[in-house]
């Protein structure tokens, strides 16, 4: 296992946000975290990223504790968070730049692969929302950490762009299988993308269920119309309904 989280607890003052969280991410695995708004999903990332320290529990990366230590993950936030005064090329190397000299050739190669070569010298203000998210994702890919943490990367996009971006993400991931931990609100998104799904309860967040997604890869959108997909979706929806009624 690449990432192992054991009995993690976090409180902000009187607010108990995370309660006894256990989860793991394997090598080359795509894991989604599904949970209601305000349950503490971003807080979990803050802890993994080392921006906050847990009150209890252990975060192990390759067997070593990284509690409160920064610099061990690649990260893609909800808003693209590109630096407006940097060109697209300068933006994608930013994360890599923090740990030494970035590889501009590799960066250009990636921009070319994802169809952004002609925008290499443009500023973010000239890009559409979907393009910005692609740049933001490449930036995360180019930093050398093995675990990629994505915090609702597509939730700010419209329905059409979102499906396009999900397919795009899968196609890129087929080529570069970093381990991914992916936060989302959307059941369909989690099912379409992930190998495994953790469902969190509302606050204080606990792991309510862990679901293995049986679909083979590579996946495409025809999967969204299959019966298996629909059944699994219903099953997950049951868990979420319990959360609503309680």
């Amino acid at each position, binding site marked *: 296992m690449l990432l192992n989280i054991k009995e993690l607890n976090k409180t902000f003052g009187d607010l108990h946000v995370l309660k006894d969280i256990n989860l793991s991410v394997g090598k080359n695995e795509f894991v989604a975290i599904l949970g209601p708004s305000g349950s503490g999903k971003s807080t979990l990332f803050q802890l993994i990223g080392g921006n906050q320290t847990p009150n209890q529990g252990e975060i192990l990366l390759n067997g070593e504790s990284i509690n409160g230590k920064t610099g061990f993950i690649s*990260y893609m936030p909800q808003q693209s968070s590109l630096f407006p005064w940097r060109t697209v090329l300068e933006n994608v190397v930013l994360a890599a730049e923090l740990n030494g000299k970035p590889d501009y050739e590799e960066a250009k190669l990636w921009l070319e692969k994802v169809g952004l070569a002609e925008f290499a010298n443009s500023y973010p203000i000239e890009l559409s929302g979907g393009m910005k998210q692609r740049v933001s994702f490449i930036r995360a890919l180019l930093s050398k950490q093995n675990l990629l943490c994505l915090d609702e990367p597509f939730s700010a996009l419209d329905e059409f762009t979102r499906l396009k971006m999900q397919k795009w993400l899968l196609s890129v991931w087929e080529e570069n299988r970093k381990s991914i931990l992916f936060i989302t609100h959307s059941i369909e998104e989690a099912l379409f993308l992930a190998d495994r799904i953790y469902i969190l309860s509302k606050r204080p967040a606990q792991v309510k269920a862990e679901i293995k997604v049986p679909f083979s890869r590579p996946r495409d959108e025809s999967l969204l119309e299959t019966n298996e997909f629909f059944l699994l979706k219903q099953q997950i929806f049951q868990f979420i309904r319990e959360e609503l009624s309680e």
Partner: protein
Amino acid sequence: MRKVWIRGGKSVLFLLFLFILWEALVRITETPMWLLPAPSDVIKEAVIGFDTFSVHILSTVYLAILGLVIGCSVGLLIAIILYRLPKVNELLYPLLILSQNIPTIVLAPLLIIWFGFGMMPKLMIISLVCFFPIVVASMDGFRQTAPELKHYMQMVGASRNQIFWKLEFPHSLPSIFSGLKIAATYSVMGAVISEWLGAKKGVGVYMTLAQSSFRIDRVFVAIFFVMLLSIVLFGMIRAIEKVVVKGRNEGA
């Protein structure tokens, strides 16, 4: 860009109108030259007396620009230190604000007593009036860094140094430039004031001489020059800003 030209053109036209009004009023009321010269008289004097005036111009331009550069560098340095060392900030920021409550006119004679009539006290006066807008504007700029960008930098494990030099500093450039523009206009004023209080050359000296011999037309030549110099410095900084500040909203 075109909008700026149209707007600029409009104010130039309006200014021209004011000059014509002034000229007409002076002529109609037959105001004597020693009380209020007509714009045409001022222009005439500027052309005729240019040889004697140019020495003074050069000296003032040199003083203003040098003072501006020193004042801004010091201001930026102070802002960075204060921002990065909050303890020092708590101690010094109130003093900085207090220092701005001392009128330059009072301070100038003191500086001249201590440092003589050379460049030193003059540059100090100009720097003193210039550095404050830079300090305030830069500090504000640093503080107003977009929180989501800062959060991103923290999540990917950037050090405090990296966060400042890669994010906070470039992010605050537009703000620093607004400080620079204010400082540029102050620097010309500072230069003239410092020359009033003791110098051999300079527009300030020229002004005092003109005033004591009731050459109001020359006083106006000096005033127009001071305005022109301020505008030119302002324009230069605006031009540098255009080159340095990239990827932000036009006109913001």
